[in-house]
């Protein structure tokens, strides 16, 4: 019942639609039928039949395999390069940690040797200088400031929004925020400061690279915990009254960043790996250099 109607539909189809119909119904190359009708009943083999078929099949197999090899060679190579880079980064990190530990051990040995050598007054000066330079682990009362990124907007109702906006929103805090808190704490009388357990020294830099805050070239991520050792009452009062604290109070209510600071009876800050000055050397002035510190 449907057959006649279908063929009628095909016959009356516009030319453009006919191409599509031909495409679907006549999938075999018309050349085969044409060649068969040309040859008629002549079924004899021609001399080029076998070589031609062999050549065609050879080409087809070759093409398919080249494509296969090409596709599968590229992907593992990219993965290999990536894995190699990751291994090298990890190895460099391990080396760095090992060297850090070595520096700490040697520093401890040096301190012990110095203590054995006596010279009490000079020893006290050296120790005091080392504490200020961040070369030895220190402990004492102080203030702890925590800066947190706003709660991640993932799985929040803003599904249809562009990704760029949410990425920007997820990283409000930058090196500038960490730096302003650190500077305020120095100004309030802190004697030693660490950021996420990286001790700050007189040569420390707090920078921004990509989406990570770098402290002395070591990347850290939120939450940023800034610990400062000093007179905890003085630090607390000075920091609470500062313009920095009021700014982050405002930001915490407006942008949703986490900000709080608490007095701590006992803080332990790690030592920083010593950076020996390469260019600066003590000036040969007759004035007592100790008093300028």
């Amino acid at each position, binding site marked *: 019942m449907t057959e006649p109607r279908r063929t009628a539909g095909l016959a009356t189809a516009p030319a453009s639609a006919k191409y599509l119909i031909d*495409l*679907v*119904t006549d*999938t*075999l*190359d018309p*050349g*085969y*039928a*044409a*060649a*068969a009708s040309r*040859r008629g009943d002549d079924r004899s083999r*021609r001399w*080029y*039949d*076998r070589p*031609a*078929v*062999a*050549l*065609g*099949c*050879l*080409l*087809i*197999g*070759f*093409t*398919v*395999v*080249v*494509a*296969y*090899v*090409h596709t599968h*060679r590229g992907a593992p190579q990219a993965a290999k390069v990536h894995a190699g880079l990751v291994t090298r980064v990890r190895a460099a990190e391990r080396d760095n940690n090992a060297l850090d530990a070595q520096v700490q051990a040697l520093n401890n040995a040096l301190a012990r040797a110095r203590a054995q050598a006596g010279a009490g007054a000079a020893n006290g000066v050296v120790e005091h200088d080392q504490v200020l330079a961040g070369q030895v682990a220190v402990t004492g009362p102080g203030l702890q400031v925590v800066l947190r990124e706003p709660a991640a907007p993932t799985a929040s109702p803003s599904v249809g929004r562009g990704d760029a906006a949410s990425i920007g929103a997820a990283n409000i805090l930058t090196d500038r925020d960490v730096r302003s808190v650190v500077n305020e704490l120095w100004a309030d009388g802190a004697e030693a400061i660490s950021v996420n357990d990286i001790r700050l020294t007189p040569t420390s830099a707090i920078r921004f690279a990509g989406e990570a805050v770098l402290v002395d070239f070591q990347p850290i991520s939120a939450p940023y915990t800034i610990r400062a050792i000093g007179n905890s009452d003085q630090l607390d009062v000075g920091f609470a009254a500062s313009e920095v604290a009021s700014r982050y109070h405002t930001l915490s209510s407006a942008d949703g960043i986490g900000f709080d600071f608490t007095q701590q009876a006992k803080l332990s800050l790690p030592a920083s790996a010593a950076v020996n000055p390469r260019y600066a050397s003590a000036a040969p002035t007759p004035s007592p250099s100790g008093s300028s510190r």
Partner: protein
Amino acid sequence: MIAALALAAGIVLGFVLRPTVPTWLEPYLPIAVVAALDAVFGGVRARLDGIFDSKVFVVSFISNVLVAALIVFLGDKLGVGSQLSTAVVVVLGIRIFGNAAAIRRHLFRA
């Protein structure tokens, strides 16, 4: 028989030689593969229909590859390369599918 042998030889040759595909040839590789598959299925179907012709087989394969590559090349020059390569893959894909269905009807009578 000779077709299967030649196919296997081509596959072995490809694996042994592992030729590096030049960059300018890369966009045409998928097209060539689809054209090759179309030629294989078309040839098998023609064989089953009893109208296989070696000249048509080889010439149609080579000309399909060349024409498809030419279309994609022109498309690349005119800024519609990816759309045209999609078109080529769709057309050849429909043919492959139809030929595979015809082969199935021949082999299984279903």
